[in-house]
């Protein structure tokens, strides 16, 4: 019977059939961070349980750690230091690998994980972090879990999982210049809502996906959770095999060739059946930007703020009205006329080297508009060092951007740094929820090039006008 990539990975990790559609799946890799991993490690130890295979468990410091130069264990987040020190103690006690502050391998979990070759095609990988679906971009079956489930995965190397329904999304056509993977995923969520993927494991496929470089595939999959999906995945291909080769924890030599031979068997068979199939035409996409407080509140940069009066569904209309009140926007306003006070490039969505190169190409020889605070936070220390070797830091700084140490930084507010009360920020991150980036802070999600162009213009702007 023809099987999808998800069926194949499910079958290959099946330890036991628990009945009623639930499987005990083998978990190849667990990744933790100091925000939610700390409590999992502590609770596990308190229950006198040990990590079953510590050599296959990794942890990084990304959520709480400061991103200001000269950082230490002390942070601007209230109570933050205890998350860092307790994670370090628990990680050492458990014997797992920790990418600590000061390590050249530290960074945001979903940036570090493929960068180090810890996430690989065909592995099952879990992390108590919702954006773990990012790693579907290299063909891993990876999903976010809670801290209690993380304890289960650490103690048993398995998770009991009910198999979700299956969906395939065909991203058709080729992207125009200046339009990115971020615009594809925002457009998908805009078209099918933030709950469009609830209950599904989803394969992203199609011409537009195949044409994406590996880092852009990670961006596309990153916001699968914002679509409501259990997880998302892209079949690995030669571009992924080339990406994996030479990474520190990736297989080498003969074992790598053996792995690649296995990875080539993973793509969905012709004739594989999905419970749902949808298509999205990418050839006519403009750069996308959000106007509200859910990722589904989005439209093209050449569009206008919609009128809730035109929304027939009561629940959606009320959510739109609340969103426009929070965002202080009027229906009919052109998005490229909305002034901004801040610009942020970073997060597990868009902070990899290719993101920084694309933004720097817009910023080169230009200056951030007066009154705009602009910040760039590389996704990992490796990304930061690579960017500095290319001189990208000088481009960002010359344009008026702050250049930070790696971490999640201002993607979310935890009582430390924020963009300020009722300030408006254009952000390469993944969540425009109320108060996400600060009390009453107004977030517009967009791609790194849109953020760069907007920072220069002092308003939301179309990067295509600045392309050289």
């Amino acid at each position, binding site marked *: 019977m023809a099987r999808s990539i998800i069926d194949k990975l499910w079958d290959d990790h099946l330890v*036991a059939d628990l009945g009623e559609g639930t499987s005990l799946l083998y978990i190849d890799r667990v990744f933790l961070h100091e925000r939610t991993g700390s409590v999992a490690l502590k609770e596990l130890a308190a229950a006198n349980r040990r990590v079953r295979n510590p050599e296959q468990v990794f942890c990084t410091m990304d959520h709480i750690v400061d991103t200001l130069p000269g950082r230490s264990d002390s942070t601007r987040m209230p109570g933050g230091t205890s998350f860092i020190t307790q994670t370090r103690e628990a990680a050492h006690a458990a014997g797992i690998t920790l990418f600590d502050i000061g390590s050249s391998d530290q960074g945001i979990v979903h940036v570090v994980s493929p960068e180090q070759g810890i996430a690989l095609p065909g592995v099952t990988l879990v992390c*108590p972090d919702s954006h773990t679906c990012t790693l579907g971009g290299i063909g891993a079956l990876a999903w976010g879990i809670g801290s209690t489930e993380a*304890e289960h995965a650490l103690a048993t190397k398995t998770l*009991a999982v009910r198999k979700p329904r299956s969906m395939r999304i065909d991203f058709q056509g080729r992207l125009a210049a200046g339009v990115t993977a971020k615009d594809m995923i925002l457009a998908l969520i805009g078209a099918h809502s933030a*709950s469009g993927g*609830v209950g599904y494991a989803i394969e992203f496929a199609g011409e537009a996906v195949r044409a994406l470089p590996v880092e852009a595939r990670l961006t596309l999959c990153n916001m699968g959770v914002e679509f409501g999906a259990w997880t998302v995945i892209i079949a690995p291909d030669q571009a992924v095999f080339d990406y994996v080769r030479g990474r520190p924890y990736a297989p080498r030599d003969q074992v790598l060739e*053996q792995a690649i031979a296995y990875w080539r068997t993973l793509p969905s068979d012709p004739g594989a059946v999905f419970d749902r199939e949808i298509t999205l035409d990418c050839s006519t996409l403009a750069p996308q930007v959000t106007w509200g407080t859910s990722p589904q509140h989005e439209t093209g940069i050449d569009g206008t703020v919609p009128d809730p009066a035109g929304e027939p569904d009561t629940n959606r209309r009320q959510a739109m009205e609340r969103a426009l009140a929070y965002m202080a926007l009027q229906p009919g306003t052109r998005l490229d006329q909305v002034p901004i006070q801040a610009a942020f490039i970073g997060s597990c969505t868009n902070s990899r080297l290719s993101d920084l190169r694309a933004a720097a190409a817009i910023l080169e020889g230009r200056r951030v508009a007066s009154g705009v605070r602009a910040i760039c936070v590389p996704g990992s220390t490796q990304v930061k060092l690579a960017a500095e070797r290319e001189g990208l830091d000088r481009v960002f700084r010359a344009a008026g951007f702050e250049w930070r140490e790696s971490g999640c930084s201002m993607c*979310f507010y*935890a009582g430390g740094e924020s963009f300020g009360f009722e300030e408006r920020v254009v952000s390469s991150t993944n969540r425009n*929820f109320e108060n996400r980036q600060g009390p009453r802070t107004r977030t517009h999600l967009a791609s790194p090039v849109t953020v760069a162009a907007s920072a220069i213009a002092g308003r939301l702007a179309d990067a295509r006008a600045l392309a050289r």
Partner: protein
Amino acid sequence: MEKFTRITAVAAPLLRINVDTDAIIPSREMKTVGKTGLAAGLFAGWRYQAPGSRDENPDFVLNREPYRQARILLAGANFGCGSSREHAVWALQEWGMRSIIAPSFGAIFAGNCVRNGILPVVLDNALIEDLARQVEADPASRLLTVDLVDCTVTAPDGRRHAFAIAAADREMLLEGLDGIALTMKRDDEILAFQGHDRLRRPWIYL
């Protein structure tokens, strides 16, 4: 884990779609490494007048009587979307919530609920809106009953509405089971899988 069998309680309507876990517990309210001390931060952005303050917003449903006694939340679609933070469930549990009824849930949030003694019930949106209307007529006396033994919700008008739940989730809640202890009974199967898998996929075994 506290077992869940059947409760009859005040139900509070919060019929907004896409209520995310940042709204349920803002990150700034997660101040210590642990599962407790989180109830005061529940819905902090909506429940209080200003960020960081504890001056109640009298318009927010859980600040009004009798909803302060609510043990059941009537919610909108995609409740608990967003961040995986289990703190959202710990905060709801500590506050006293035992069951949430919504048309759909964020997947990680729903999984976290059943591991902490909170029953997530999926019902049709129109039915939830009808339940909310019935409750709001006199919330102190028009109670809801959520029964996990026979998988029904009984409305104030006496009608019973069946819901579906995965058998494993139902058993975990009814028995208050420890998932790790259950899986550890399958140690032989896990070892057998590893022995076979190590030959097939040696690159996994660092």
